[in-house]
């Protein structure tokens, strides 16, 4: 009986293709929106997590200047006491629980090879930097200790720099000019792509800190110190230790605030991830409202359908249909309609999410739970919004219904 009714309702959907299609549109758009939003949302969350972990997992970043806070803007101000080799030495000597400690000074600099040029992020650092940031070399070698100490003109380049100057060729041993000093390429960094904020992480040149300070910055300052925690030490434990050592090294009296800031990249990652999750939820809720509107569309069409088929209902009642037969018939029809819409919506939603993941370079992360929820919800919408029109049809008087033109 139920299969029969489902078959009949499919027939009725097929007999009124245009009307069925228009009815479905609301549900299709609603479900597609929900699926696309939630799938893109969870892809974005994954992407953000991956991006932050590219910045280095369990990473603390020390910068000079007061931390940003309610007192006003933090960061560098004219009175800032820069970081230098004594802070770095103090951390290396006294900090436990760190996997890698590395200084970094950075500047956007014009890099030239032959007639080509490129503005690139040039970083002066040491050999622990790759470990601290979890970066790898595709070819070549890291800086040697003697190169670090003497500040030799050698460098590691990112993929974007290679492509600009050498295409697919091997850059090793070539000499590039960085801010009028020459620099020999000793290695190529693994490509990392763009960050979620659109920053090209491959447009970089690394050189020994001493070389950078002497030839590019013209001072002995260190812009930031990266401290990577080892596997056993959470960053929340490491952070106060770094703070103590630095206060000591910079001789800050107990009654004075820090004149440096320590940023915990893990916390930033968590905050970002939870922000995207909230965003996803809100977009999903908005899409959910459109599903509701779709449901009202179903109700409208079912009411029209009941009125239009009053005579048919009359015939069915006359030849012996009970109220429940008519009720079930229209309920099943509404449910089949909205389920059909739901399935089409899922396909369109997944296609949209797939397209978005291709164009925005985020992972495609469909969730079975979300899909099942959308299917269940669209069936529920059909039943709920189909019930009133179905009941109206079932309650018709067969004599009036037969007389209906």
């Amino acid at each position, binding site marked *: *009986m139920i299969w*029969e009714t489902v078959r009949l309702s499919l*027939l009725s959907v097929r*007999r009124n293709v245009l009307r069925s299609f228009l009815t479905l549109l609301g549900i299709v758009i609603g479900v597609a929106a929900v699926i696309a939003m939630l799938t893109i949302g969870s892809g974005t969350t994954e992407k953000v997590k991956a991006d932050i972990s590219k910045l280095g997992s369990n990473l603390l970043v020390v910068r000079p200047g007061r931390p940003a806070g309610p007192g006003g803007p933090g960061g560098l101000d004219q009175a800032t006491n820069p970081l230098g080799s004594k802070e770095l030495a103090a951390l290396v000597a006294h900090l436990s629980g760190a996997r890698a400690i590395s200084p970094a000074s950075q500047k956007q600099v014009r890099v030239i090879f032959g007639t080509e040029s490129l503005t690139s992020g040039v970083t002066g650092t040491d050999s622990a930097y790759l470990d601290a940031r979890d970066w790898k070399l595709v070819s070549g070698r890291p800086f040697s200790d003697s190169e670090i100490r003497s500040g030799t003109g050698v460098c590691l380049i990112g993929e974007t720099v290679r492509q600009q100057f050498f295409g697919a060729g091997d850059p090793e041993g070539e000499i590039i000019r960085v801010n009028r000093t020459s620099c020999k390429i000793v290695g190529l960094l693994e490509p990392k792509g763009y960050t979620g904020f659109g920053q090209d992480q491959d447009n970089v040149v690394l050189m020994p800190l001493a070389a950078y300070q002497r030839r590019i910055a013209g001072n002995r300052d260190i812009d930031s110190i990266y401290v990577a925690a080892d596997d056993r030490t959470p960053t929340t434990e490491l952070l106060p230790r770094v703070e103590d050592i630095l206060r000591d090294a910079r001789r800050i009296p107990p009654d004075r605030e820090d004149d440096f800031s320590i940023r915990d990249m893990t916390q930033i990652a968590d905050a970002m991830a939870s922000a995207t999750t909230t965003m996803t939820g809100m977009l999903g809720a908005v899409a959910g409202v459109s599903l509701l509107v779709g449901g009202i569309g179903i109700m409208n069409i079912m009411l029209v359908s009941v009125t239009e088929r009053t*005579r*048919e209902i*009359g*015939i*069915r*009642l*006359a*030849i*012996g*249909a*009970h*109220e429940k*037969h008519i009720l079930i018939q229209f309920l099943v029809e509404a449910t089949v309609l909205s389920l059909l819409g739901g399935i089409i919506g899922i396909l369109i939603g997944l296609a949209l999410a797939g397209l978005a993941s291709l164009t925005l370079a985020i992972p495609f992360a469909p969730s079975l739970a979300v899909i099942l929820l959308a299917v269940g919800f669209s069936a529920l919408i059909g039943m709920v919004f189909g019930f009133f029109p179905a009941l109206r049809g079932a309650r018709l008087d*067969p*004599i009036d219904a*037969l007389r209906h033109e």
Partner: protein
Amino acid sequence: MSGSLLITFDKVWKSYGQGEATVHALAGVDLAIRSGEFVAIMGPSGSGKSTAMNIIGCLDTPTAGTYSFMGIDAGRLDRNRRAMLRNLYVGFVFQGYNLLPRTTAVENVELPLIYRGAAARERHDLAMKALAEVGLVGREHHTPAELSGGQQQRVAIARAIVTRPTLLVADEPTGNLDTARTHEIMELLTRLNTELGLTIAMVTHEADVAAYAERTIRFLDGHVASDAVNLEVAQP
């Protein structure tokens, strides 16, 4: 024609509206139809013949009085019980055929069997047989739009008899048909009456259609004005 009593009206009233505006469509009608009879019901508009037919077909109930169908007090049954009664014992043929549009002939004929819960195979076989009985072999898979008026009415008759009903209620069955088609349909009804012993109650306003019946009941102003055996039954 001398079967058992199938239908009896005992002082049946059917009234609409209230107070001053009350209209009595039936005003204390007494009536009896035996099983196997072929009865024509005639009368002008508003005479109460349609109301009487609705009560006979268990579609409607009297306001007062007793309507009994096969010995059952059908006038006091609820909607669903009357629906069951119609499904089991009554077939309907209407002036406007009342087939489901965009639905094939055989599907239309299967319809009453669906509400009996018959299996798909059985339904199909019975429907094909009923279509053969009304002379529509080869047209089973045509939709109403692809059939002529006479053929559509044959499908409707097949739908009415597929359940092997006791009573066939026909409301102006030839009202939409030309003379030739009218005679074909009336011959079919007559054959069903004689061969299957089907009791037929038929509303018509055409005397030559009524002539196919054995008996004519005339309504006027809510009363039975005359009830007579046809002396000259039209010969098929």
